[in-house]
């Protein structure tokens, strides 16, 4: 019962929020918040519950069902809690924007659709929810107008390509096995040929690869992230994109089954190995492209792609450790990237929409909470110990080293170095350095925006120090895939070559930090001066030159730009232009002259007649 209630609550809440907005905006805000909090409560009350319910048989007599299992619960709780935080954040962020009813409606609808995706027990309801999610996302990406419009089109076209692939896959499964219920498909899959399984894996991988932005299919993401409203960018990067990971888990380990999907092909040219390599490429290239970005959100967006690569590498490697790492990284990534987008959003809110890294700086004092969020966020992103990103990255490195994959391991490390370089720029150009004059009197960050940032920051630390909390339920998920369980304690995880125990690291670090702090306190001699109170060779520095963070990586930029172009995006643009050209020419078949049209008609008739009478084709 509670599952139906959950879904009804999610979808109904979205519609009612819209209606409430017609009455008063205050009522709507409260209602939206209540809805999303209620969803968190309901989902968390369903912990360790495993049920299956049939919604109805209305769709061509196919039973559309919902099922709850460890995997679904894990993703569901992540979805609802992140969306609750985002809704809370939006209450202030979106206050003075137009069409807020619509915004909340779409936000909650996307949330409900994602919930329906992870809870769906059959492929048709999976597809339906997937598509609802896709089109509502499109509607929300376009929300910011202007530059957001092409981004939206790019997103929806790629998304449609993915959906069509998935639809073909689903229907072929239905024709092959005569069922759409996932649990039944699993049983039937044993009878399928290896070729068919490979077909399924590939065709679903296209869909999920597009959604998760695996490298050749990633081009929709940077624009979409950058141009959406910031709270929605957070949802987009945190959970929505990661529905791709959910999909990969579903197709690889649930439907096709681990023992099949990990033995598809031979040697290097096996399915999961190629996927892992794609993941590695996804880590390296976007991370370095991120370094070149001057738009805070675009920078984060490219990191979003790159981090997706870690997850892919983890789950494609296909050991319990790797899987745990991949899944955990999905959660961790969600937490810190939402945090980062929310803090960038806070800056955007305060500076009236500025997010250009070159024109900001020194906001540390003005917006301490946002700075905290940004700092902890990038710590998580890099994977500094004591933050959650460290644990999942550690798991992935460990997997790759244990799995004797030095190149992949090197790629992941390379990605981390790139991350460090680029997020330093991010942190520095936003919060550190000099505060430009025009930002001296920026708006204060409202409380509703601060609370989510604080909560997420704390979560990063909690999961970093106590990784066992989420790893337990991840472990349950891995077991349900048929892998050997990990030995997880609340402080960490042990594997055959070494144990990760965060409490040790925590205490060591605590001591080190305390010592350093004392040293710094004792040795502090610097004095604070105003930013214009500095001179070079006796002359004041021109004002426009004072911000030394402008063009932070200029030499690197000059060196790397030719190699770091997004060739896939260029290729797709070319295809799109060609299609447009072709469309324009096809149209010219309809010349506008009746005599031509009559020739067509007569030609058609004459062709058919002669085909039959002369050659008896039919």
């Amino acid at each position, binding site marked *: 019962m509670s599952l139906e209630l959950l879904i009804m609550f999610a979808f109904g809440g979205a519609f009612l929020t819209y209606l409430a907005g017609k009455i008063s905006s205050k009522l709507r805000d409260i209602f939206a918040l209540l809805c999303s909090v209620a969803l968190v409560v309901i989902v968390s009350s369903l912990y360790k519950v495993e049920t299956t319910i049939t919604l109805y048989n209305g769709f061509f007599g196919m039973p559309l069902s919902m099922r709850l299992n460890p995997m679904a619960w894990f993703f569901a709780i992540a979805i609802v809690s992140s969306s609750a935080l985002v809704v809370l954040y939006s209450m202030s962020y979106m206050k003075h924007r137009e069409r807020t009813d619509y915004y909340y409606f779409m936000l909650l609808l996307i949330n409900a659709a994602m919930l329906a995706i992870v809870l769906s027990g059959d492929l048709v309801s999976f597809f339906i929810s997937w598509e609802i999610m896709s089109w509502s996302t499109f509607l929300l990406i376009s929300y910011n107008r202007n530059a957001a419009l092409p981004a939206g089109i790019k997103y929806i076209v790629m998304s449609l390509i993915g959906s069509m692939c998935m639809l073909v896959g689903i229907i072929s499964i239905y024709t092959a096995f005569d069922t759409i219920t996932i649990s039944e498909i699993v049983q039937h899959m044993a009878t399928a040929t290896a070729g068919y399984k490979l077909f399924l894996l590939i065709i679903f991988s296209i869909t999920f690869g597009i959604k998760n932005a695996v490298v050749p299919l990633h081009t929709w993401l940077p624009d979409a992230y950058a141009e959406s409203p910031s709270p929605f960018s957070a949802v987009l990067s945190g959970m929505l994109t990661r529905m791709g990971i959910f999909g990969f888990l579903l197709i690889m380990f649930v439907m096709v089954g681990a023992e099949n999907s990990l033995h598809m092909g031979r040697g290097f040219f096996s399915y999961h190995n190629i996927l892992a390599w794609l993941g590695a490429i996804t880590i390296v290239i976007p991370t370095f492209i991120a370094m070149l970005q001057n738009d805070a959100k675009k920078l984060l967006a490219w990191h979003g792609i790159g981090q997706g690569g870690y997850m892919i590498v983890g789950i494609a490697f296909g050991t319990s450790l790797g899987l745990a790492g991949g899944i955990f990284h999905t959660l961790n990534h969600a937490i810190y990237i939402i945090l980062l987008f929310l803090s960038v959003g806070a800056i955007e809110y305060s500076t009236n929409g500025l997010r250009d890294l070159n024109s900001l700086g020194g906001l540390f004092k003005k917006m301490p909470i946002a700075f905290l969020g940004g700092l902890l966020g990038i710590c998580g992103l890099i994977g500094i110990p004591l933050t959650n990103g460290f644990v999942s990255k550690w798991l992935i490195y460990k997997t790759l080293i244990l799995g004797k994959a030095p190149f992949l391991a090197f790629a992941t490390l390379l990605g981390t170095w790139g991350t460090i370089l680029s997020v330093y720029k991010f942190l520095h150009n936003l919060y550190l350095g000099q505060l430009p004059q025009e930002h001296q009197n920026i708006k204060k960050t409202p409380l509703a925006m601060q609370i989510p940032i604080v909560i997420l920051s704390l979560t990063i630390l909690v999961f970093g120090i106590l990784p066992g909390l989420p790893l337990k339920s991840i472990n349950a998920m891995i077991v349900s895939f048929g892998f050997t369980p990990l030995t997880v304690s609340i402080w960490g995880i042990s594997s055959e070559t070494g144990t990760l125990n965060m409490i040790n690291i925590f205490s060591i670090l605590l001591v080190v930090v305390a010592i350093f702090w004392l040293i710094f306190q004792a040795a502090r001699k610097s004095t604070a001066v105003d930013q214009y109170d500095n001179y070079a060779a006796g002359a004041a520095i021109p004002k426009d030159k004072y911000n030394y963070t402008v063009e932070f990586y200029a030499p690197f930029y000059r060196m790397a730009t030719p190699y770091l172009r997004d060739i896939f995006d260029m290729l797709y643009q070319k295809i799109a232009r060609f299609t447009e050209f072709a469309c324009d020419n096809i149209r010219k078949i309809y010349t506008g002259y009746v*005599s031509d049209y009559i*020739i067509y008609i*007569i030609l058609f*008739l*004459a062709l058919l*007649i*002669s085909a039959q*009478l002369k050659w008896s084709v039919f």
Partner: protein
Amino acid sequence: MRKCIGIILLIIIAWGILTSLQTMPFGVSRAKVANHYINNGKDETGAANIVTSVVINYRAFDTLGEVTVLFLSAIGLGAVLATIKTREKRDTEKASLILSTGCRFLFPPIILFGAYIFIHGHLTPGGGFQGGAIIASAFLLMYLGCHGEKRLNDRCSTFSESLGGLAFVIIGLIGLAVGTHYFLNNFMPLGKFNTLLSAGVIPIIYIAIGFKVGAELSKIIDLLMEES
């Protein structure tokens, strides 16, 4: 070039039609449906004119459709012409006295002839369509010969075309309501063969059609004449 292609294509089509036609022996009765009409038409419908029995009884539904097509073309023409307002007065020469008198003299007999044709539709060749067309040609004569003097009465033509069509449909519906419950059933007594009051509903329908067709065709002429 284009013409050549067109001709070649048309030749291919003609070839197709010819091969089809070769399979039909000319003049030999193969149609069993037609045989049925010839053999049983008299008894089943009571009409002396077999063509009429087919048109108004066996295939009355088609006739209803055709009447509608005619109705449509008049209405459609009216609808299109109503939107184009480019009326310009042209100088027209008045017809000579002899011509106009002759036309006026001929008008009643032609009308009468048309009426005769459709009233006797079930007995002699012709019927509602032909009668209506003849009536319309009488109006045409008036338009040509006595320019602008006598115009079709709009209200009158509307009445006759509407009532004609309605009568057809209502007779059909009465057939559905009474007797054997078939639409357009010949529910009235067939009467004595080969007399004016025979063949059940056929004469009534034919009169309705005659009025309707006459009114519609005249209206089309009226519309076009008025415009020019």
